[in-house]
């Protein structure tokens, strides 16, 4: 499948073939775990501050390719701040300062010649509150990222529209009302529409900031099924408040507290045999 954004933006580097080589620095303890796949995102000494407030301090971790990594922790622990640093969303906040390195398949996204827009096309994002563009139809929402990046070819747009909606498991529900206003969909459908919209620009990594926290249980279950499907083709990082959700959908889990990474490892280990007392207290519900 050719990437049409490549033609419109020569700066967009092609994705390297997935490597299954060693080198990922996932903390593996005694528990048996599969050999970690190559890192999609290598984060080194990442700190974020807003004015005089430091929200995130010296975080280093590797996020593996084609797997789901969950970020958990109490409110205000820096989960969302961390997530937003991964596609340069902090650039929009004048007081925000980001230090350290974030390498996306080897290249630093905060490098001197890097366009934030190019990074955001490679690292997509889905937000807590479903935010389809209210002036646009279902179809226009999905193709917005392509159209506003200069893709005009109708055949390409139609194909991507179908493909993205199928991937987001929404096609069957909306195929007969693609021209209806996006806000006429239900809350759960709107969130899957936002996922389809993010998928349409063919990102490599998809960041999700509590994507199901505003949805009812059945809509949440659909989003979780979707996450499990998507990890076949994408690297997913999901911030969640819901520990059962983290346990259900993720392969790796990072526990944050007070702006610092406390523990990171395979989800099974974090939930059953964490190395730190603090992690155990949190996942067993003793605090947070």
């Amino acid at each position, binding site marked *: 499948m050719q990437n049409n954004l490549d033609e419109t933006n020569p700066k967009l580097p092609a994705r390297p073939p997935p490597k299954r080589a060693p080198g990922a620095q996932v903390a593996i303890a005694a528990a048996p775990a599969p050999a970690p796949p190559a890192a999609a995102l290598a984060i080194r000494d990442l700190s974020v501050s807003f004015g005089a407030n430091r929200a995130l301090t010296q975080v280093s971790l590797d996020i593996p390719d084609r797997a789901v990594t969950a970020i958990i922790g109490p409110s205000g622990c820096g989960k969302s701040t961390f997530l937003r640093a991964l*596609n340069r*969303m902090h650039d*929009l906040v*004048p007081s925000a300062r980001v230090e350290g390195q974030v390498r996306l398949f080897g290249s630093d996204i905060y490098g001197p010649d890097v366009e934030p*827009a*190019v*990074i*955001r*096309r*490679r690292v*997509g*994002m889905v*937000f807590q*509150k479903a*935010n389809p*563009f*209210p*002036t646009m139809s279902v179809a226009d929402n999905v193709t*917005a*990222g392509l159209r*506003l*990046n200069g893709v005009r070819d109708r055949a390409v747009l139609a194909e991507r529209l179908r493909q993205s909606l199928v991937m987001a498991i929404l096609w069957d529900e909306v195929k007969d009302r693609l021209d209806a206003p996006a*806000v006429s969909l239900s809350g759960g459908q709107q969130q899957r529409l*936002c996922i389809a*919209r*993010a998928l349409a*620009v063919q990102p490599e990594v998809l960041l999700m900031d509590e994507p199901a926290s505003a949805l009812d249980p059945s809509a949440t279950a659909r989003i979780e099924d979707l996450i499990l499907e998507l990890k076949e083709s994408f690297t997913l990082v999901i911030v969640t408040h819901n520990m059962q959700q983290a346990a259900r959908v993720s392969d790796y889990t990072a526990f944050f507290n007070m702006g610092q990474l406390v523990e990171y490892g395979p989800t099974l280990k974090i939930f059953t045999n964490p190395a730190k007392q603090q992690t155990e207290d949190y996942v067993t519900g003793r605090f947070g």
Partner: protein
Amino acid sequence: MQALTCACALLVVVPLALVFYHVLKSGIGALNWAFFTQLPKPVGERGGGMGNAIVGTFELLGLAALLGVPVGVCGGIFLSEYGHTRLNWWIRFAADVLNGVPSIIWGMVVCALVVVPMRGFSAWAGGIVLGFIMIPLIMRTTEEALRVVPKGYREAALALGIPLWRAILHIVVRTALRGIVTGILLALARVAGETAPLLFTASGNRYWNHHLSDPIAAVPLQIFNYAISPYEDWHRQAWAGALVLLVMVAIINIAVRALTRERLGKVP
């Protein structure tokens, strides 16, 4: 207490009813087809109309919009979307002060800047002065309309890798369009009735305006000239002009109501 506040609130309706009743009663008699199509007749001759002034008002509003809308909207976009510095505070402050400047002062300034160098009153000068009055009004309403667009839409657009200017134009401004158009219409309604700044810019004209560098008639100017005249027939024409102006402004306000109501109904 409730009765007192209610009475005070109702007091706003009374003048409106009085104005409408009186203007309607005095103006309706002189309203006919000729009033909308013909030129004013010389003193002493009955009949005639203010077709030139009605057309002139629309021409002046068009010229004013040509200047006021792009500058006001772009300024509002800057204040809301790019404004994070001390400069913005000053621009906002300046716009608020300008909104309070008496309109006759605008007229004097444009007279000095446009009329004097061009050596004559002109439609251009009239359009420019009304446009200047519109700029700070539109700037502030545009800014307000853009500010209520939830941050989530901007973030969603930027997270798709859409460049900032395109996200602003195609997503944020599109979402706020009703509010922006409402602000433009209110600014047009406000300047449609301005008289003082036109006195020494557009100046008025008893004939059709064939060239924008010639003086041009406007309904409020015509009302002013007729109302201070000693002739009974002109007085009746002035009332009819007032009725036309009032209906124009009322139509704009009703359009604004329709726009804003639909917007409120559409919030997801």
